[in-house]
């Protein structure tokens, strides 16, 4: 190793080490009190229902309680499912990072026009129900989709050259499509506040770009990257809709197997074992993550973005940026546009088209707003008809409640976690926070039915259950978005405030809060989009008179008739618009920003 590297290492050493907790004493009681709300929430709406359904399921086991375990482990097909679940999640995570990190760098370090649009567009993917995403990819890559049609007519092919549905590629691409925004937001946000002077200092000391990245930037980013990777992994590990709809019958994950065992076969004991396996995997992973990250975080002075970001000046830079944007657009934005395009298109099938294309592919006949007009008509006087305006209002209502609830619960949890990392309480509670994400939605949904059945908590048929369920999913995201930012706040700022006589609350209000405002917005955006797009839990508990947008889409797309399909596409486009506008609005908060100091 040359001396340059040692100098890099030296540069890193000059960063202050993690503060010893003794340096800044606060009574333990505060931690306990701050934990109280999130813990009560989790106990009541997560652990209690989950424990009830698992207990009830095992009670139904025939013979000993070990029987379902033996059944699960001795089945070759279930071992196969476990193995596939694991490696597809790993592969999906690596691919998502490969796409997301360059994008995060670009969004974090450079200033260019249309940046917030790109951010919002990539975030839209996150809210779309799987059936809609399948329709979007089909409009693009299906047998008669835009790409295949173009290739067939260009090269005079008889059969569509690209085969997309029911392949592993479809699963991986859809996972990247959904989850890249997690990397962009979590890593990109953190990166954008990283002091560029650290890199510059390394450069002055003689480090080249590559070794600066490897020895300075990456180590500093690692906590955020690990957070994002963990979330992506857990999301893809518990993947359900993508596997079912895009992967097809050849593929099964633990979650699809749990659904099959529960709903089709009513083999609750076996489903419970699978749900437990899924939980233990999530827990193990989160514990490894917590251990890894606790050694990595360093307090930094985060900088406002107008200092860290610059314009792209060189042609080479523009070229590389162009490639990154192109890849993101192709992966995420193209299917969205294909969907929007189809929703305002008029297609016709004629005899001549059959002769040309072989299968009578519908021919494009111009634009129309008919699908949107039809959405507003209750043709059959149906009781459960809901206009787009109603569904938007219902969706926004649930999303608003979820944002408020998830932040109220997530902020105190993230705050204690970032303060007293070595305390026993924190070390044991931290990994538990991620569990709801790794829990089978099918199992937990039944848990609500079994557990929350007595007044005052008879919530089995209550619409309140919807934002509660959404918050369970959003809560880990909020905590994971906030902790890296909270942890990296230099303790000196806090100490300075304390020395000047500020009490802990004032310190939080005037030091921590402004510094994490940006991360709070990221957290809010996650909570908002999670709630807006959530389908599974909502379908189990929402009131049919007040469907959310995804629920209304589902109703339309499960019926025959091109008009129903057209309306489903139109409503999906409306969902994209609502999500996009919502995220732009959240970005907008920055103008009145307490965060840009």
């Amino acid at each position, binding site marked *: 190793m040359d001396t340059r590297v040692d100098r890099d290492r030296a540069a890193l050493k000059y960063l202050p080490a993690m503060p010893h907790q003794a340096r800044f004493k606060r009574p333990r009681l505060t931690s306990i009190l701050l934990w109280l709300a999130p813990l009560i929430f989790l106990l009541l709406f997560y652990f209690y229902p989950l424990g009830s359904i698992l207990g009830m399921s095992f009670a139904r086991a025939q013979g000993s309680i070990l029987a379902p375990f033996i059944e699960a482990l001795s089945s070759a097909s279930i071992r196969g499912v476990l193995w596939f679940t694991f490696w597809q999640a790993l592969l999906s995570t690596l691919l998502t990072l490969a796409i997301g990190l360059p994008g995060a760098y670009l969004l974090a370090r450079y200033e260019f026009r249309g940046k917030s649009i790109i951010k919002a567009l990539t975030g839209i993917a996150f809210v779309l129900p799987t059936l809609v995403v399948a329709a979007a990819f089909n409009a693009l890559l299906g047998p008669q989709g835009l790409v295949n049609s173009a290739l067939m007519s260009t090269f005079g092919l008889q059969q569509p050259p690209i085969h997309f549905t029911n392949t592993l590629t479809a699963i991986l691409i859809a996972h990247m499509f959904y989850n890249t925004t997690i990397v962009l937001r979590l890593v990109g946000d953190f990166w954008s506040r990283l002091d560029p002077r650290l890199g510059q200092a390394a450069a002055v000391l003689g480090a080249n770009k590559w070794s600066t990245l490897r020895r300075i930037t990456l180590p500093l980013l690692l906590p955020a990257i690990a957070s994002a990777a963990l979330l992506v992994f857990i999301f893809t590990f518990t993947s359900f809709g993508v596997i079912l709809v895009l992967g097809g019958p050849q593929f099964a994950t633990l979650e699809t197997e749990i659904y099959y065992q529960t709903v*089709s076969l009513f083999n609750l004991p076996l489903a419970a074992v699978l749900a437990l396996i899924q939980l233990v995997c999530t827990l193990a992973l989160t514990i490894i993550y917590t251990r890894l990250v606790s050694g990595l975080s360093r307090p930094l002075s985060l900088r406002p973005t107008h200092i860290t970001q610059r314009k792209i000046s060189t042609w080479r830079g523009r070229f590389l940026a162009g490639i990154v944007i192109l890849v993101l657009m192709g992966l995420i934005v193209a299917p969205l546009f294909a969907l929007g395009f189809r929703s305002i298109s008029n297609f016709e099938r004629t005899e001549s088209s059959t002769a040309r294309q072989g299968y009578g592919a519908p021919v494009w006949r111009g634009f129309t707003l008919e699908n949107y007009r039809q959405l507003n008509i209750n043709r059959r006087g149906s009781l459960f008809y809901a206009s787009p305006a109603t569904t938007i209002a219902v969706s926004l*209502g649930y999303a608003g409640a979820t944002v408020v609830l998830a932040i109220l619960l997530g902020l105190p949890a993230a705050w204690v976690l970032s303060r007293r990392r070595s305390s026993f309480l924190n070390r044991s509670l931290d990994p538990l926070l991620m569990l709801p994400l790794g829990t089978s939605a099918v199992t937990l949904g039944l848990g609500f039915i079994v557990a929350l059945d007595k007044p005052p908590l008879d919530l*089995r048929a209550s*619409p309140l259950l919807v934002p509660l369920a959404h918050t369970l999913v959003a809560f880990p995201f909020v905590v994971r978005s906030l902790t890296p930012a909270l942890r990296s706040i230099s303790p000196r700022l806090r100490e300075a405030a304390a020395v000047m006589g500020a009490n802990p609350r004032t310190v939080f209000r005037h030091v921590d809060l402004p510094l994490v405002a940006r991360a709070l917005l990221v957290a809010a955006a996650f909570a908002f989009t999670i709630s807006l797009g959530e389908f599974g839990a909502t379908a189990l508990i929402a009131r049919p008179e007040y469907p959310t947008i995804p629920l209304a889409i589902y109703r339309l797309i499960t019926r025959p008739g091109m008009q129903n399909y057209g309306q489903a596409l139109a409503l999906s486009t409306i969902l994209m618009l609502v999500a996009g506008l919502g995220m732009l609005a959240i970005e907008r908060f920055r103008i009145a920003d307490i965060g840009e100091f």
Partner: protein
Amino acid sequence: MKKKILLLLASLALVLSACATGHQTLKVMTHDSFAMSEELKTAFEEQHDVTLEIIASGDTGSALNKAILSKGNPIADVFYGVDNAFLSRALGEGIFEVYDSPLLAEILDDFELDPQKRALPVDFGDVCLNYDRLYFSEQGIQPPLNLADLLNPEYRSLLVVTNPATSSPGLAFLLATIGHFGEDGYLVYWQGLKENDLLVVNDWETAYYSEFSRSGGSRPIVLSYASSPAFEVIYADAPMDEPPTGVVSGDGACFRQVEFVGILEGTRQRDLAEKWVDFMLSTSFQEDIPLQMFVFPVNQNAQLDSAFTQHLAIPDRPAFVSPEDIALNRERWIQEWTETVLR
């Protein structure tokens, strides 16, 4: 947020006003495909001085699971939507009370699959293969008439069906082949379909809206319902005289799904629950069923809308497998099917 609060306040006001006037509430638990017209709901509520609360609980299997797990302390008074593929599970778990409705007299005996009258039939739908008329007229070949035809070379690479493990019509079609070819013959048939390049997807939406040639896919024969052609006319983009799709309705080519309603064990509203069950079986509700739920009435006196009488072919002789056989063998059949078709 504000809207949400308003919504909550509105529903709270509703509940309070209901209590104040001594109103009763009848809760009906269903799957998420349940629909009815607003008019009928109001009529029932006014006639019996009751507020009707519909609780949608996910797909058929999920809704039934919820009803089973809340047995003894039921979420609702009535459960609607268990079909013959799930009937044995519902009856075996004992979630229903016996109710011998006088309206059963108007219903064909064929539909009454529970002789003890715990689950009463409400509607039926036939799962059948549909074909794309345009494709077959263009290519100048005859569409298939029955299941055996599909093994012929001219239908190679034309069929898309759904997975019986994940899709309710998929299971129904597997049952049709079992009913038609018998336990000894069905796997041989599926082996033949596989050799004729059958395509299997997991859900009806992918089959119908992605792979079916009518929607831009490359397969002109798709698994759907006998009613789908009529709905293609009713919900067409542009008005049409003739349905764009046809049904393969030969002997034993379809499987009949019957949906049932039952009074949930432990209800405190037994009288009202009976009234609701009678209402569901009465002609006014039965005639509302097709256009709301895309299935058909079991009451012989119910009249069908002209759109259906013109375009609907209800198969005369669907394949039959009893609910007990389905419950006993479902797992094995699906497993054997998986081994044969997917491996």
